[in-house]
């Protein structure tokens, strides 16, 4: 089985968010970039398939050369090869078209992408690549079992979960649940050394256009101070929620 894991290079979850250039760009100053957490679950699941079922695992990222430390981390975790599509990832549709081209050229059986990246929260790339390539697709995937070409996937739904039967070739939008958080891997020294020797192929983007454009950004208005209510005066809390906040 040949697996491609799509890696997004995103600000660490604790990052403070600021904008620059007249609020038209995300301010990367002082921001630590990491593998998108939803992709990290997918990558670890792919490593499980590699070790238990003999899969080959490639990773791909659409990004400029600045994303290479993140790609190398994926290689250090155990991916066999990496591809970087040399382009600024301007919008989800653009990224999906670049990834679709890589998938088409690489004949992958299973494509794992995170259900969304934690920066722009588009949640669109896995569904778009599956549709562009007419591949089967399971989103918000929290469990994946593969036997030959037969796939049983579990996905999260609002208020519960759903079991789905499908077949390879398949795209999943993965998330926490694909593996336990405690199973996520931190690259060790041997992995880091080996990653230096692994192939990182840079390909140029196709001529696809972005479909959307983030013209400007702003931040939520600053919040007023919390109103503290005495623990012995619950009536006051109910009064505030009913009369002031109109929330109950």
């Amino acid at each position, binding site marked *: 089985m040949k697996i491609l894991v799509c890696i997004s290079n995103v600000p660490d979850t604790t990052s403070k968010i600021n904008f620059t250039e007249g609020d038209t760009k995300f301010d990367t100053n002082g921001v630590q970039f990491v593998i998108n957490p939803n992709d990290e679950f997918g990558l670890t699941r792919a490593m499980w398939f590699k070790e238990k079922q003999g899969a080959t695992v490639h990773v791909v990222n659409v990004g400029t050369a600045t994303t290479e430390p993140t790609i190398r981390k994926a290689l250090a975790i155990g991916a066999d090869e990496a591809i970087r599509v040399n382009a600024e990832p301007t919008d989800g549709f653009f990224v999906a078209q670049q990834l679709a081209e890589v998938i088409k050229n690489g004949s992958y059986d299973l494509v794992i992408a995170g259900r969304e990246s934690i920066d722009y929260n588009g949640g669109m790339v896995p569904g778009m690549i599956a549709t562009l390539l007419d591949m089967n697709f399971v989103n918000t995937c929290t469990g994946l079992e593969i036997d030959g070409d037969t796939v049983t996937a579990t996905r*999260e739904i609002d*208020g519960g979960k759903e079991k789905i039967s499908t077949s390879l070739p398949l795209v999943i939008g993965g998330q926490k*649940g694909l593996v336990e958080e405690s199973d996520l891997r931190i690259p060790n020294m041997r992995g880091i050394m080996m990653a230096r020797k692994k192939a990182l192929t840079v390909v140029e983007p196709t001529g696809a256009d972005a479909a959307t454009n983030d013209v400007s950004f702003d931040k939520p208005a600053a919040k007023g101070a*919390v109103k503290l209510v005495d623990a012995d005066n619950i009536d006051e809390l109910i009064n505030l929620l009913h009369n002031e906040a109109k929330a109950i």
Partner: protein
Amino acid sequence: MSVLVYTESENGKFKKSAFEVASYAYAVAQQLGTTVTAVSFNAEGNDTLGNYGVTKVLNISNETLKTFNAKAYAHALTEAVEKETAKVVIIGSSTDSKYLAPMVAAKLKAGYAPNVVDAPESTSPFKVKRTVFSNKGFAHTTIDTDIKVVGVSNNAFGAKENSATAAVEDFSPAITDADFSTKSIEIDKVVGKATIADADVVVSGGRGLKGPENWGMIEELADVLGAATACSKPVSDLGWRPHSEHVGQTGKPVASNLYIAIGISGAIQHLAGISASKVKVVINTDPEAPFFKAADYGIVGDAFEVVPTLIEKLKEFKAQNA
């Protein structure tokens, strides 16, 4: 050239969000000087969509579509878009809708803006405001393709009554076996309880609850308020509650009217997940807990003393205001 809206239903009944997206579609149609056509799947009471400005409903009655299937639904919706020559497609933000929307967009070669929180700022260019960076920022985004797909955040726009008469027309999209290459084989879902995505009120517990055996009072408080239950990341990591209840940057976002956090200190990732909620209440023993900076109302106190009293007082309040 109507605005097309996907109105989500469950067991034949429209979800609350269906009326919200219909209201949003009406606001877009007003700006564009056109009308709203809704697509409904096996739902009863299609004419009620008229109350939210819908003038035409394409009603799909098809046994094979009783259970949500993203590929088949995407096929049906795109066929409806072509039939109506729609230029704007409005979809909600449930887990199913977010599964569906990118597939519809890719089929139509359309730009998709998710997590939209307000009516379009302009229609030429078509510009919307949406949350990014897990609610820590907003982007003002233009959709530059001929057809536009807009994903509306839950509880952001609200259901707004706009009295119209909805003409209901049967619609039979040409669904084939190829549309069912993924099949639902089992659904495990709590029936009759509000979900985080739909709920007006969410009651959420953290590690301060000390163990899963103490969740009874969270559930009781949620019952009194007609709320969904949720939890912080450590709680789901410890297996006290399922991941589907994990709220935060790597869990579910919450955009409820009221969010009550009990025994949750308020890590930055958790606060990002709940910042779209309108009113936030925190109950925590630690007055230095970061959640107090994000909350509207707070009680510094022991959850095991405060919550049972709150339940009793709310029961009294409800009895008096019934």
